[in-house]
């Protein structure tokens, strides 16, 4: 009896080890294996190859030659980051314990069209209100809101207060320049307060498999009036190339409203939802996982062009004037 019990108890640890046999081994942690793993994950899961007309196999051929198992971590990181930069996507990063690769050409190669000091000093002025993340004031009977990041949460209380404050005004300027994105919940919370009726904002194409063109049929997204109060008079949304990701979504949600005008520069894009994936060496890559299009088929990855293109005039800037705000004030009066 004791012998049988002993054998039975001995069997338990064996189960601990047998499951390892049933599970796939992690890929080798060598520079070459990490490079191949990253290339393969992007190949199978990145969503914008077809739209961007990128030949990912050619990219492999180019960068694989630069990788060998003798290279340092820093060298490997640089090669991988260069390879990812071929995607020309601000949602693509490689994170290691010593660096974060990024693609910022969506705005670095363009004029900034925003001067925070001028906005704070000459438009918001010291007496502006900071209602949660919404900096707001009234300029010549026009409401002005500056919202710098969709990562800063807007509550219903915040937006109720601001809408109430602006209720009798002719128009409202919503300035989202330099807003690099954040949560889409904040997009809906804010945009729904300027929405007059349910409207189709965009279509999302989710990937359904590893092929570059493997997508589910498009999923339509709508914006509907939200909260207890909405502002449906004239609205101007101010944009520049640094408006990215969730800010891009917000601009698109406002773009479909007939009483809204988009003024400034084109937004930076970032229409795909970024997701993360771990590599064999523990680094984490991030990349776009889906694709969004405006109802007419325009791909939102390339940024949303404004209705009225206005650049920050350098002569005006020296005088402390924001040409884009001035144009919006003219438009709404």
């Amino acid at each position, binding site marked *: 009896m004791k012998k049988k019990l002993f054998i039975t108890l001995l069997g338990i640890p064996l189960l601990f080890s047998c499951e390892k046999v049933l*599970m796939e081994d992690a890929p080798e942690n060598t520079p070459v294996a990490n490079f191949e*793993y990253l290339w393969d994950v992007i190949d199978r*899961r990145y969503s914008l190859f077809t739209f961007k007309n990128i030949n990912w196999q050619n990219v492999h051929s180019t960068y694989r030659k630069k990788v060998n198992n003798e290279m340092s971590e820093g060298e490997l990181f640089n090669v991988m980051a260069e390879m990812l930069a071929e995607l020309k996507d601000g949602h693509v990063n490689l994170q290691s*314990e010593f660096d974060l690769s990024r693609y910022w050409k969506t705005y670095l190669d363009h004029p900034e069209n925003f001067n925070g000091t001028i906005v704070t000093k000459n438009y918001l002025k010291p007496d502006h209100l900071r209602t949660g993340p919404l900096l707001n004031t009234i300029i010549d009977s026009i409401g002005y809101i500056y919202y710098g990041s969709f990562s800063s949460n807007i509550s219903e209380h915040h937006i109720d207060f601001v809408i109430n404050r602006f209720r009798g005004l002719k128009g409202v300027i919503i300035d989202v320049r330099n807003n690099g994105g954040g949560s889409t919940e904040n997009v809906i919370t804010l945009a729904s307060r300027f929405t007059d009726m349910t409207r189709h904002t965009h279509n999302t194409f989710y990937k359904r498999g590893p092929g570059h063109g493997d997508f589910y049929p498009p999923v339509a997204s709508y914006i509907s009036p939200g909260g207890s109060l909405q502002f449906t008079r004239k609205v101007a949304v101010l944009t520049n190339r640094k408006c990215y990701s969730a800010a891009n979504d917000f601009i698109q949600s406002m773009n479909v409203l007939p009483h809204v005008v988009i003024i400034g520069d084109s937004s930076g894009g970032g229409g795909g*939802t970024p997701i993360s994936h771990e590599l064999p060496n523990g680094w984490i890559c991030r990349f776009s996982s889906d694709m969004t299009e405006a109802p007419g088929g325009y791909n939102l990855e390339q940024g949303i062009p404004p209705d009225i293109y206005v650049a920050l005039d350098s002569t005006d800037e020296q005088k402390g004037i924001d040409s884009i705000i001035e144009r919006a004030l003219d438009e709404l009066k």
Partner: protein
Amino acid sequence: MQRFLLFLHFTLVLSTDVTAQQEKPRFIQFGGGWGCYTVLDPAVSPHLYVGDNVLFRIGYLAQKPNVINTLDIDFSYGKLKSGSGNILSSTSRLIGGDINFRKVLRVRRAANDKFTAYVGAGLLTHGLYRNYELFMNNGSQFDYTNSISAESVIIKNFSFKNRKLSLGWRLSLPVFSASIVPSYNTSLPEGFIHHGEKPVSATLKSVDFVTMNAFQRIITGLTLSYPLLNGNSLQLDYHWDFYHYSKMNKLTVASHSFRLLLLFGISKPS
């Protein structure tokens, strides 16, 4: 912890009167324990995520000479850590739940009456949620499965220091399952990526009906029962649960669970 040990001590002391051993056919069971999970989720990482979890169980057991019915409701909570070894190493919170109903019928009793074999079927519901804390937008991953399983149990009675103990071995093999997992690149099942879809319709769109070719699961374990006063008993339970989902986003999960369970008789012997 001290209170629990004290409670356990008194329970064992109270059970020393062997003449008080009785058999009751129906029991409520509850208890807890420790487990260890290993998760391989290639949708987010090539590494095994391994970690401890705490376990709780409430259950019902009806044991008659020819049939055993069990209903187990299990809950587990724990934390997993990536096996990458990098200082960035991601961690994952884990919440698991099982509701398992099993019915087995006696098929063989050994001539010396020392072991009895049962076979039957089960309805197994299993859900496991992982939240990978460093991952953006796809950090929430889960799997949910309802299965019809083939069940077998062998119970061996034996004496140890004048007490009648029993050792049970069981095996569950799901043969037909309905599974829901996130779609290829998201944290949402296929039916739920369509905004505004009604929950029932979205759920039906998300369900994947699979047999053993796409979903392989094995649950096996040992249970040592020790009789207490008034027909109650104490059980030391170990089980190993392994499953592999081999559709688009492959997933492999293994868990070891050790539980200490108290079984309270709720009916007098017939």
